[in-house]
């Protein structure tokens, strides 16, 4: 029997994951919300800064850079949802069986999801920041404030998209491990929001060291000048970056290992 020659490649799996992501409305809701949250909070924070009786003095505590990147706190919650849903949505609907039937090696599916989710979060958050910056510029300029071309500004502007990509990928890994949307989002919100605030109430060097290595502190360290950063405290920028990469890699590798063993 003759058969037309179709063949499977990783590029094909990658394209498949992109088709999956872009053909769901929820993706575009999340993308829209991310851009809106980042750009909107940048503008809102800039307006509140220039409305201060003495904006120049206020900028010592809340800099224009912090204002433009102030959406990062909310945006991390949105990308947690995007990352988790990319895989838990498939388990919830049964789509995962179609995906694994088409790509029984399974690992390429997870790797492809890492690439497309990472790329989408990177471009979306960068776009949000660019719009936020462009909208805030005239507002800040009117009050004699501007983003200073210093290292911490660059670290914040480049660091926010990188941090949000790593948060989304951590969420993807946790989602692949737990295979449950609510469970994955709950676990991520606990790690990102709840645990750091609860643990910081405990007066202990040990607990403090743990908090320093949680995503918000690690991210805050390499983003340098954002609402999540505490200059002069916590890990160094590089240590923070490496810690954040570890946060993303560990659940993804664990998921990659169990993915091949579990029944779909």
């Amino acid at each position, binding site marked *: 029997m003759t058969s037309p020659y*179709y063949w499977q490649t990783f590029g*094909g*799996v990658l394209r*498949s994951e992109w088709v999956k992501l872009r053909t769901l409305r929820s993706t575009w809701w999340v993308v829209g919300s991310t851009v809106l949250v980042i750009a909107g909070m940048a503008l809102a924070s800039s307006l509140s800064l220039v409305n201060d009786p003495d904006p120049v003095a206020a900028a010592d505590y809340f800099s224009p850079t912090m204002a433009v990147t102030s959406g990062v706190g909310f945006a991390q919650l949105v990308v947690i949802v995007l990352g988790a849903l990319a895989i838990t949505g498939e388990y919830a*609907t049964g789509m995962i069986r*179609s995906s694994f*039937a088409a*790509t*029984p090696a399974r690992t390429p599916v997870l790797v492809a999801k890492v690439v497309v989710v990472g790329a989408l979060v990177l471009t979306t958050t960068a776009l949000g920041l660019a719009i936020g910056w462009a909208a805030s510029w005239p507002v800040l300029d009117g009050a004699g404030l501007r983003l200073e071309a210093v290292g911490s500004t660059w670290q914040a502007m480049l660091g926010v998209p990188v941090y949000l990509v790593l948060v989304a990928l951590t969420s993807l890994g946790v989602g692949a491990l737990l295979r449950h949307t609510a469970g994955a989002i709950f676990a991520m919100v606990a790690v990102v929001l709840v645990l750091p605030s609860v643990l910081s109430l405990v007066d202990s060097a040990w607990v403090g060291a743990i908090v320093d290595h949680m995503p918000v502190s690690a991210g805050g360290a390499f983003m340098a000048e954002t609402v999540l950063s505490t200059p002069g405290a916590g890990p160094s920028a590089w240590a923070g970056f490496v810690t954040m990469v570890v946060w993303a890699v560990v659940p993804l590798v664990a998921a990659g290992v169990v993915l091949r063993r579990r*029944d779909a």
Partner: protein
Amino acid sequence: MIVVQGLTKRYGPRTAVDGISFTVRPGQVTGFVGPNGAGKSTTMRMIMGLDRPTSGTAKVNGRAYAQHTSPLTQVGALLEAKAIHPGRTARDHLRALAATHHVPARRVDEVLEMTGLTSVARKRAGRFSLGMGQRLGIATALLGDPRTVILDEPVNGLDPEGVLWVRNLARHLAGEGRTVFLSSHLMSEVALTADHVVVIGAGRILADAPVADVVAGASRGLVEVRTPDAVRLAPALVAAGAQVSDDGTGLLAVTGLDAPAIGAVAARERAVLHALTPQVSTLEEAYLALTADAVEYRTTPVLEGAAR
């Protein structure tokens, strides 16, 4: 060609599939029949590499499904109607799966056409009826133009026209030399479509034979005898080696002797016969007889239930 050897699947203490072996050959339709919970879907998922066998192997066209470099060209499967994200349109669902194997958009439109879904291709799958979902599942199975087609309960939720379409499709695919393996809990459905049947019950293979042989093999050789002389005839038949049950109205149910032998005994005993009827077993009866001990969920008789 599907070769299953010693395939076993345990979920904790429960054994869903218990060391089964069978071969599904190309160029014919093989039915996979058994009551609900017999292990049909589990077996099919193991063949597709979705569930890991506890032990044993399932090979498709010479190797485990997951070992093929381009799996969709080897096997296409309808596993469950709802292996689909409800938020995606039928066409997007197929395009996403097609992309993994560089299957062109032309082929996606072709399988939509074949399954009669062209007019609803841009509708979201969540709004599909059970029958339309089933058609989309079959379209997915055909996408890679596979040498082997696995269909789990393909006629579920289809209207009579759809059922006929699936039968013709299965026969057509087998006619092209492909391996076609389809499951059903209805023997009557499989009898109309399949050449060969594998019967499974409680995780074990009960029969693996051409459809005609299964009918003949399970025929119980029951003969009904209507006679006014039951009181004399029944003991004589038992003496001749038969098992006889007498309902007291002159109707005897006889097994162990065929109709000519019963007639000879009656002549010797000078018993009057009003009827001597060999009971031909239907496929459905053969199936019920085979699976009688292997049914997982048994219904209680209605009257017995009502009396409590």
